[in-house]
């Protein structure tokens, strides 16, 4: 049961093709990982899906309707959310204020649950720019999860985190996705983390899909091994 789908997504920057005819389909309660080497087009991909960058070709559908040209604000209202690779929080506001602000907009009934799931209770009254980087990433995730979105696109939530934090972060993502029946897309640099966390994995290389499927299938895929995992796996 696909809820969110990208079909034939292509993004060109002048002559350079950053993404070429990529397809993807997300299902509720399923964590879908996207990996790929640097320059594979991962960030462009999530930008195209989330509406930050309008694709040169292809369509994005949500619950069967074409939303390619819809604004990001409209998408959020319908339950489509994303996080950012570089921490994107509201620096001068307290953690509580900014979460409440987003909660108000998105009709979140149970903010406390998100706060406690992500372990943010203790720092609720602290100014966001003064808390630790790892915690800021959790706030970032919390902002994306507020309002029970149906689809969450996460752009490298573990970027810059130390190993332990990274493990915990991915566990949070998986828990929330399962608990709330969210369709999650997880773009991540940490290959091992993705294999551990995700139900489905798509591998991008040079703007194209190299392989897609269950973790074991992908791990066994010859193209993937040759082009990307070669040394790592």
């Amino acid at each position, binding site marked *: 049961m696909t809820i969110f789908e990208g079909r034939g997504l292509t993004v060109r920057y002048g002559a350079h093709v950053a993404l070429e005819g990529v397809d993807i389909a997300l299902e509720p309660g399923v964590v879908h990982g996207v990996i790929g080497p640097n320059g594979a087009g991962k960030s462009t991909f999530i930008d195209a899906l*989330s509406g*930050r960058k309008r694709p040169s070709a292809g369509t994005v559908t949500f619950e069967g309707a074409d939303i390619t040209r819809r*604004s*990001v*604000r409209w998408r*959020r*209202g319908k339950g489509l*959310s*994303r996080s*950012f690779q*570089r*921490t*994107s*929080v*509201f*620096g*001068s*506001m*307290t953690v*509580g*204020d*900014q979460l*409440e*602000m*987003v909660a*108000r*907009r*998105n009709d979140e009934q149970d903010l406390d649950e998100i706060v406690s799931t992500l372990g943010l209770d203790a720092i609720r009254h602290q*100014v966001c720019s003064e808390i630790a*980087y790892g915690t800021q990433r959790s706030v970032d995730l919390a*902002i994306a999860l*507020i*309002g029970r979105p149906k689809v969450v696109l996460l752009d490298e939530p573990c*970027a*810059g985190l130390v190993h332990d934090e990274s493990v915990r972060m991915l566990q949070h993502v998986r828990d929330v996705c399962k608990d709330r029946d969210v369709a999650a897309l997880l773009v991540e640099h940490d290959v091992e983390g993705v294999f551990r966390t995700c139900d489905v994995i798509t591998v991008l290389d040079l703007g194209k899909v190299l392989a897609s499927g269950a973790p074991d299938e992908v791990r066994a895929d010859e193209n993937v091994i040759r082009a990307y995992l070669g040394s790592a796996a």
Partner: protein
Amino acid sequence: MTTTAPTDDVTETMVAVPPAGPGRWKGTLVGLGIALAVLLAGLAVPYVVTDTYRMSLVVDATILSLLAIGIGFLARHLGIISLGHGAFFGAAAYGVGIATTNWGWSPTTAVGFGILVGTGIALVMGLLVVRASGFGFLMLTLALSQALYALSVQTSARPLTGAHDGKLLSYDRDQTFLGLGQADVMNPGLFWPMAWVALTVCATLLWVVGRSRFGTTLEGIRENEERMRFSGYGTFGPRLVAFVLSGAVASVGGALFAINAGYVSPDILGFSKAGDSLIAALIGGFGLLVGPIVGTFLFVYAQANFNFGGNLHLFTGMTLILVLVFMPGGITGTFQKLYHRMRKGRR
């Protein structure tokens, strides 16, 4: 990973402490109480400052403060610096001049009209500029206000604006501005209640707006515009509303200025008027609502006392640089920091 690269955002160093969040009704009520007390206490000023000349300086500074808090509001809540607020101040002043002198309206109605004109110009300019940020915003506000200046001195605008010669306000002797005749409005002691009430009401209004949910939305936009959009907030609307609001406050100042001075000349539309006011607001500090007011009073004082041989700009330039380099939060911001440090030290 968190980069400290310079941005076009001014808030990092210049807006020292975040304003309080929404829903603190108790704090808001206390604040309103204080505002009312300040308003009432301020009405006694003419009994303290009995000297007409000094009183006229106080009135001048109060009127100019409206322009400065308009600029300060945008800087504080949206982190954008406007060089175009002279346009709203000036347009409102011309609106009053045209309504009284050309159309024979009563001064009271004309002031209302002037505020509408200034606010209207703010709306039009806002539609064009609020999408921009940083230098883009600065340049666009500068350019559009300069364009308005250039239009106001066109020969074809002469019947309305008086072009370079300016415009002398005239209305019948039996017409009054809220009970003040033409000679009375020029008496600073009599005009004081109007200016003071306008300033305290506008300042309180801006303060309440800043504390409201809308204020929090603005803060969110200031801190991270893109994330706000990805969190489901429209950012154009709130920015526009904030811009028009701050323009309206500047317009109130302009309309009162016209009535008080009895004369409007194109230099109030110009770049140096807005520049002076911006400098005053910067020196006072953006972090607190009263910062721009403090700055404006200092500026008017300096203008009255240190303008010998035209060296005022030498001094203001120097002060501006010193403040920006050594006390980026302005005077009030620095005091605020000292206060917080002292409190922390005591704990």
